[in-house]
């Protein structure tokens, strides 16, 4: 039965429709895989009973010839998504055993379409991190290891649990969120496909907020087609989120296999960093060559404000976070550490409930919004953001259909290897991805090769606003050329 876990979502859908196996069988196979992979720490909450109940209910529907586009597909849910009746913590101690009475819009749409919930996935605390090391439930292991090494590597972050679980075949797909690269970087570190759609494509309602103007939900999946299928269910206008956009959601799967002939692919010169590993450089050229071979035209483009993106991001995101996280005060839900008065209660609760990285960002955010500093930091960062957005607009105005970049500046690294002394070392992981969030554009990370140590590397494609379809078409070209990568099981 375990070989059921190695199917792609698209293959599983066929098998379920043909009644080759049931959703309950598919779900059980994944539940067993989860149980056997606890060392990865990908799941922070397993919901086997709920999973089986959902699977049985879907099986009945399938038997009646009903069932939505994801009928019977078992998924993992990042712990940032509120799940009704199931503990939701954002992997922060401050939420304690918080159990929402509501379901996030994105997950409710997945259940509407027949998907089955296996459990909640680990992530960096409040999605703040690039290695899934800041979770209050401890770090997540990457199913990939360096050749000949037993060192456990990080899966990237913040959606580290999602990426690890999908790569280790613990779930057929997972929800994730991306504020500065939190879908694409872990996807690249684990040879999975991750897409951050255009800001406004998915509802943020019911997702624990990190930085509201940057946060966007998206899937991590085993293939480009799987990602397209998942995104179609996750996306859509939601009147409860006024930043979600009221335009129809296309059938993304129809974009798979569509010709990319004549498409103009921009290669941004500013992404060629000094000291960039040769293998990243090589991967990038290879990707470009594959797209060219498929009939696309390559053009060098310039995104002149790229170098300001990371510093500006680390002002905007903490500023919003400092305000978004003010609600965790010990008064209404979650952790409460008593004090002599209300101020002490706040201080004790927040000191005890937030981890170091969250505290750091809350303090940075508070600082940059303070009287006398607002103009120099926050306002300036917003101006930079406008310029970054304009860089992309200028580029697209010249007829460029998508932009190809590396997804990350390196492959996965060991737990505890980076950022210990200097958090900026960790922040640099997002150097290729934050620009996309700052501009609100869609970006996809697709596995494209391995480094010398056998670790997966990914490429990123950046698209026009709401043109995720082009990213799926181009992404599949890379996927076809590069092949799919599965880690050798060691757990």
């Amino acid at each position, binding site marked *: 039965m375990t070989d059921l876990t190695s199917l792609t979502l698209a293959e599983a859908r066929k098998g379920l429709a043909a009644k080759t196996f049931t959703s309950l069988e598919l779900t059980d196979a994944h539940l067993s895989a989860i149980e056997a992979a606890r060392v990865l720490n990908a799941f922070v909450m397993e919901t086997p009973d709920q999973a089986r109940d959902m699977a049985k209910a879907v099986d009945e529907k399938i038997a009646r010839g009903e069932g939505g586009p994801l009928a019977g597909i078992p998924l993992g849910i990042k712990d940032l998504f509120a799940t009704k009746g199931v503990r939701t913590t954002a992997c922060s101690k401050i939420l304690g055993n918080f159990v929402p009475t509501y379901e996030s819009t994105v997950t409710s749409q997945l259940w509407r379409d027949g998907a089955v919930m296996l459990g909640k996935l680990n992530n960096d605390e409040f999605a703040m991190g690039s290695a899934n090391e800041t979770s209050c439930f401890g770090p997540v292991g990457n199913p990939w290891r360096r050749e000949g090494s037993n060192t456990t590597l990080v899966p990237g972050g913040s959606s580290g649990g999602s990426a690890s679980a999908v790569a280790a075949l613990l779930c057929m797909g997972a929800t994730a969120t991306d504020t500065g690269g939190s879908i694409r970087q872990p996807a690249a570190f684990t040879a999975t496909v991750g897409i951050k759609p255009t800001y406004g494509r998915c509802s943020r309602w019911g997702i624990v907020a990190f930085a509201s103007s940057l946060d966007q939900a998206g899937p991590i999946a085993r293939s480009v087609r799987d990602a397209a299928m998942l995104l179609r269910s996750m996306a859509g206008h939601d009147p409860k989120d006024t930043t979600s956009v009221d335009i129809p959601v296309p059938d993304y799967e129809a974009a798979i296999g569509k010709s990319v002939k004549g498409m103009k692919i921009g290669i941004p010169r500013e992404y060629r960093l000094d000291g960039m590993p040769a293998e990243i450089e090589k991967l990038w050229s290879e990707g470009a060559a594959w797209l060219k071979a498929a009939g696309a035209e390559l053009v060098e483009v310039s995104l002149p404000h790229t170098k300001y993106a990371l510093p500006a991001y680390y002002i905007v995101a903490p500023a919003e976070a400092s305000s978004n996280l003010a609600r965790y005060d010990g008064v209404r839900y979650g952790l409460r550490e008593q004090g002599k008065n*209300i101020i002490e209660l706040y201080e004790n609760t927040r000191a005890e409930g937030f981890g170091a990285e969250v505290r750091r960002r809350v303090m940075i955010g508070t600082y940059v919004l303070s009287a006398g500093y607002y103009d120099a930091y926050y306002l300036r960062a917003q101006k930079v953001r406008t310029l970054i957005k304009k860089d992309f607009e200028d580029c697209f105005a010249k007829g460029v259909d998508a932009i190809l970049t590396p997804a990350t500046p390196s492959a996965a690294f060991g737990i505890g290897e980076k950022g210990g002394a200097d958090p900026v070392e960790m922040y640099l992981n997002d150097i290729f991805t934050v620009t996309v969030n700052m501009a609100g554009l869609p970006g996809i990370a697709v596995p494209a090769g391995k480094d010398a140590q056998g670790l997966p590397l990914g490429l990123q494609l950046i698209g026009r606003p709401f043109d995720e379809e082009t990213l799926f078409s181009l992404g599949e070209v890379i996927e076809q050329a590069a092949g799919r990568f599965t880690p050798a099981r060691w757990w």
Partner: protein
Amino acid sequence: MSTATHKLLKGATGDWEMVIGMEIHAQVTSNSKLFSGASTAFGGEPNSHVSLVDAAMPGMLPVINEECVRQAVRTGLGLNAKINLRSVFDRKNYFYPDSPQGYQISQYKSPVVGEGEVLVELDGGRSVTVGIERLHLEQDAGKLLHDRSPTMSNVDLNRCGVALMEIVSKPDIRDAEQAKAYVTKLRSILRYLGTCDGDMEKGSLRADVNVSVRRPGGPLGTRCEIKNMNSINFIGQAIEYEARRQIEILEDGGEIDQETRLYDPNKGETRSMRSKEEAHDYRYFPDPDLLPLEFSQAFVDDLKAKLPELPDQKKTRFVADFGLSAYDASVLVAERESALFYETVLDKLASRARDGKMAANWVINELFGRLNKEGRDITSSPVNAGQLAAIIDLIGEGTISGKIAKDLFEIVWQEGGDPRALVESRGMKQVTDLSAIEKVVDDIIAANPDKAAQVKDKPQSLGWFVGQVMKASGGKANPQSVNELLKSKLGV
């Protein structure tokens, strides 16, 4: 702008002038809260009107209530103010248990309504125009309950998230009388518009008052802000006290500390709440959960076209159409309910052109006078508009005299009933039949030959005869007929 002379305060070293500006927080009349669907009903069980958004549960997002936007725009139009087609919601960050989000959603740099003005009438026909700086929408906070547990405080979030309009005046107010008149007028406009019920006891309208003093016409002094006043009289008292306090400090050679103060109505004094140094740094920034608030000029025009007649316009119309004095017209329009009552009377009159002015006199003198005496308001008047209109019709058409009308009013006040039927059943009809009156006139002249002889030299003594005849007829004789008859009989 001011056409009024205002009060100066005498100090030991000369006169001082007050400079006053106000921030009025007016609760928007709407069924649901500014950013959530929870009810705004007053007086529910604690935490019975609280949505997930109001309680700031993780992942909740605000959605603007369009009705509150309409109400703010309507208010702006009523204040003759500039309506901003694009405005921005900001977060005002502070920690307090009455603010579950840890920030209040407000409008900081770009309010929905810009500059406007309010014409404020004072006693003696004086008036002053007070400039409006801005109006913005924001969330109200919850309420702490300190009496439910010996060791803890509780919080009631029913009011949390209810829409408020903060209406900021320019520092155009110069004394307590003007300040009180300004709040009264603003409250009246809001009530006419139906955008705020103006109920100060329930906290629907609260004022923060900024007070400073200076030498008349001199440079501005340092101001203190008196927070959260919910009575017009207290506003007046607080201003007087605060200005005196500041003058005393300045005349002693001291300096005013810019601070926030509270007024204690029991002691009749203001006291320091927090100094400028203790002031919060609210870290305002645009709320990333909300798009800028944008609407079209057509949206504004539509609201403008449907705006009700406001007190100033109504007053002008009453003066022009019915020849009311400016003062009487002001009295009638001051409260929406009074104006409504008067207009209902007008609607029911047989001839509003003939009796409109008389109706105003009756509403103001008889009805308001009687209501005041009994401490009732117009909405609980025992005499309704239809009854009053009938009484006035009866006077206007000559069926009863003004004097009889007062008796009739009293009967209707006490017992109710249809005035016209009462006049019939109780025989209160005015006697216009000359032959019936003539007999009485003749009798009285015959009984008073001396006085009759004097009338030719002293025509003013005719009034005495009129009075006697009216008395003898039980007030039912038509005074005009009596007058004419007496004149012809006595040869004046």
